[in-house]
């Protein structure tokens, strides 16, 4: 899991395997963003899941959100070498701070041939 005081998480898998990255968040949110950051580039949104969507799919990506346990996950099916990146979850604040995304520390995913 990539929240709290944990350091950057690292996962290493082989091409073709499935992988799941977890995110636990501390404060109430109605949406979790998942961003991907390739080496030398800024993060880019890959999937967004709202509190009324327990599961969201986009191609080989699948995100889940459990507001009762304040956790989200991102799964990649049949990972490819080009999926190698850092993956961040981010939550939106509520009320007066809904402008703000709070990012987790990230998961470094390495996919090898």
């Amino acid at each position, binding site marked *: 899991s990539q929240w709290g005081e944990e350091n950057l998480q690292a996962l290493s898998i082989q091409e073709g395997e499935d992988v799941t990255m977890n995110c636990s968040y501390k404060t109430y949110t109605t949406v979790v963003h998942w961003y991907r950051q390739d080496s030398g580039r800024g993060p880019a949104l890959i999937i967004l899941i709202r509190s009324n969507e327990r599961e969201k799919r986009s191609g080989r990506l699948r995100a889940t959100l459990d507001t009762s346990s304040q956790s989200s996950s991102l799964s990649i099916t049949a990972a490819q070498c080009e999926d190698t990146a850092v993956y961040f979850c981010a939550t939106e604040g509520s009320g007066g701070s809904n402008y703000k*995304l709070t990012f987790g520390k990230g998961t470094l995913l390495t996919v090898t041939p």
Partner: protein
Amino acid sequence: EAAVTQSPRNKVTVTGGNVTLSCRQTNSHNYMYWYRQDTGHGLRLIHYSYGAGNLQIGDVPDGYKATRTTQEDFFLLLELASPSQTSLYFCASSRLGGFYAEQFFGPGTRLTVL
């Protein structure tokens, strides 16, 4: 596609130096953000703005000033740079603040304070 550019891409300065990082977005977005990224810490919000002349304080604002001169341009100022400000800085923009709005990030500026 949304476009956010940053300059310079790399900057080296000395302790006590004066640094300005620039960001421009051409998406007509209202919100702009400055983040810093350090190994193992994810992205931390320094300042943000929801329009020209507006500035809001983020989570790690100490030692930083910012100014939004136009809807397109957002600057981050370090007036007395310290080694603790050595980091990778990202600018981002979004159409809305929150409300499921995607943030679009620039390529980053790597700052080294000696």
